């Protein structure tokens, strides 16, 4: 007899992701699936539009990280119009992008991912949120997070016209150069960002890493998946969010692939399951072997931990020290521990702040030449950035007038979808025995999902923000046996 458990976050938009768990006769987990709705027809929507509109259109796909779409699209246009932006423009773009990454990662830790550890995975749902975090760190730190977020968003507004849906990137450069006054402000905020990121890491150290129970949880087999990893690296194989080549390492940490993003279709393929709209990406030459890990399975991961796993170093000194310390603590590189994504996210926030400071101190950042006008006939372009949630690729084909004929987007969470599904299956199998399910177990399964900070169904803004998670246990007859709600 198969029983079915559903973890269903009913949001403003009905049908936002849900986790379904199927039990066998013994009440153990037979299978578990993550289901998400599909936003339909973006490719069709793009066809027939002038390519230069894409940075403004594609950023509307996602209400959470429009900056990442804007930047990937802008870089795609550079390639499409065969134009290499002036150095100053590239540096300003990277600076802008670092500010965005710092803000997004910091907010995620304190408000969203952090509560699992800061307050504790077994804390009640009433405590497991920002207020629980504030109880640990104090209101002052919370105000600091809010304050620094405001400062970074103010800078981005001045650089790009607005934070959300920026009017910033253009093929061949950016819309306007920086002023001395703004650079001075950026330096101050960057310094504050570095100090705050160091504080966050110390806080993580004291509250999480020095707690044996939490460290054991991070290292536990339930949250371990041995996969390949992918992320952008620069010419020295160092971490880079803005540019470089895509590097893939195998589960032992050896370089398996390194390629310019233009060649992504040669190496990445997609698998379709009848129960999901998601296209599960995998490494073509390794092959799709199902939701299993190991060297023979083509499943790979992206996002903070994956990026550190594919990088040989971090070019900014303090983030590199923290990177070394993380791998020493976790028992070497690469790390397969899903919950270490939270730690890696904090290290990346530090890198982003240090990188802001480095770029703001570069004299070239004030150069007035920030645009090279494209003159070539467009045909096909591919652009890539590392979004907070992983590798983001934009790919457009146009006619000779630059009108889109084909568009393909690989969004960050798509890369991680197979791994997320595999992680949920593993956690569910380990934690649900003989049909026993309670709120604590539900949370321990959700933790694996949260570590990736997945972004499904981008483009939504949620007014009531309902997330009444439900676990419903049904008999085979369809009768409800148990129901658990988190609200």
């Amino acid at each position, binding site marked *: 007899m198969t029983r079915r458990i559903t973890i269903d976050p009913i949001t403003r938009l009905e049908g936002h992701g849900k986790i379904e768990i199927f039990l066998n006769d013994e009440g153990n987990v037979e299978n578990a699936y993550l289901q998400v709705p599909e936003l339909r027809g973006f490719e069709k929507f793009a066809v027939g539009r002038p390519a230069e509109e894409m940075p403004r259109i594609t950023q509307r796909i996602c209400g959470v990280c429009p900056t990442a779409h804007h930047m990937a699209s802008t870089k795609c246009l550079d390639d499409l119009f065969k134009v290499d932006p002036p150095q100053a423009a590239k540096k300003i773009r990277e600076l802008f992008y670092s500010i965005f990454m710092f803000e997004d990662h910091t907010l995620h830790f304190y408000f969203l991912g952090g509560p699992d550890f800061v307050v504790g995975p077994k804390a009640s749902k009433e405590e497991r949120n920002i207020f629980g975090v504030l109880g640990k760190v104090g209101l002052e730190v919370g105000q600091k997070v809010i304050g620094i977020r405001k400062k970074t968003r103010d800078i981005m507004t001045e650089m790009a016209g607005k934070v959300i849906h920026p009017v910033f990137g253009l093929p061949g450069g950016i819309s306007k150069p920086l002023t001395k006054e703004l650079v001075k402000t950026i330096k101050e905020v960057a310094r504050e960002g570095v100090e705050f990121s160091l504080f966050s890491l110390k806080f993580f150290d004291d509250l999480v890493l020095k707690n044996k129970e939490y460290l054991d949880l991070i290292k536990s087999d339930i949250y371990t998946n041995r996969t390949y990893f992918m992320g952008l690296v620069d010419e020295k194989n160092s971490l880079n969010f803005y540019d470089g080549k895509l590097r893939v390492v195998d589960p032992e940490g050896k370089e398996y692939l390194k390629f310019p993003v233009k060649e992504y279709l040669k190496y990445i393929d997609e698998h379709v399951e009848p129960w999901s709209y998601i296209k599960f990406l995998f490494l073509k030459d390794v092959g799709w072997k199902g939701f299993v890990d190991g060297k023979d399975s083509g499943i790979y991961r992206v996002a903070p931990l994956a990026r550190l796993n594919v990088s040989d170093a971090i070019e900014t000194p303090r983030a590199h020290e923290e990177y070394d310390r993380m791998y020493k603590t976790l028992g070497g590189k690469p790390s397969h521990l899903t919950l270490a994504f939270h730690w890696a996210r904090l290290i990346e926030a530090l890198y982003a702040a240090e990188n802001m400071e480095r770029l703001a101190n570069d004299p070239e950042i004030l150069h007035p030449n920030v645009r090279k006008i494209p003159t070539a006939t467009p045909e096909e372009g591919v652009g890539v950035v590392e979004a907070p949630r992983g590798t983001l690729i934009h790919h457009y084909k146009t006619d000779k007038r630059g009108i889109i004929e084909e568009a393909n987007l690989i969004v960050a969470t798509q890369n991680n979808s197979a791994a997320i599904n595999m992680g949920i299956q593993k956690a569910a199998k380990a934690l649900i025995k003989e049909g026993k399910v309670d709120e604590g177990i539900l949370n321990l399964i959700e933790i694996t999902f949260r570590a990736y900070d997945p*972004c499904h169904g981008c483009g939504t*803004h949620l007014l009531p923000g309902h*997330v009444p998670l439900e676990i419903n246990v049904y008999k085979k007859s369809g009768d409800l046996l148990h129901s658990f709600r988190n609200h």
Partner: protein
Amino acid sequence: MDEILLLGLGNEILKDDGIGIYAARCLKEIFAGRIEIRESAESGLHLIDHISGYRKVLIIDSIKTERLKVGEILSFDIEELPQVFSFTPHYVGLPFSLTIARRFGIQLPEEIRVIAIEVEDPYTFQEGLSLRVNKTLPEVVERAGEVLESWLSHSRCAHIS
């Protein structure tokens, strides 16, 4: 403190999700210069940036409960929405964000009203609304206009007294 803000929420390239945006644009023609009018596709925490500093805020947004008729219009005070603690930025709701803002001492409006419209399809990338949702647009604008006029008139009376 500024007086009144009308905030149209939605994504105008996701079919019916754009109703809040289209309504805000219609209202701009009527109320420009008398109140502040903004559009946003952002979610919870970021909305605080928009509404902070205003005395009264009217939000127009789409909902998809699948329990109401398409085109049905709800009007309620934000305080009537339940508090739900959230676990990703994609699911942070405004009520939860308001609680956070209050805790941090951020200046919030004394009243936030919401006009929400049950929509048919907020999932398809397309400009323009579905027929059934489009039909409700004049009523949405009218009802929002009534709220704004009553706030403005109350505001004028307050100044006289």
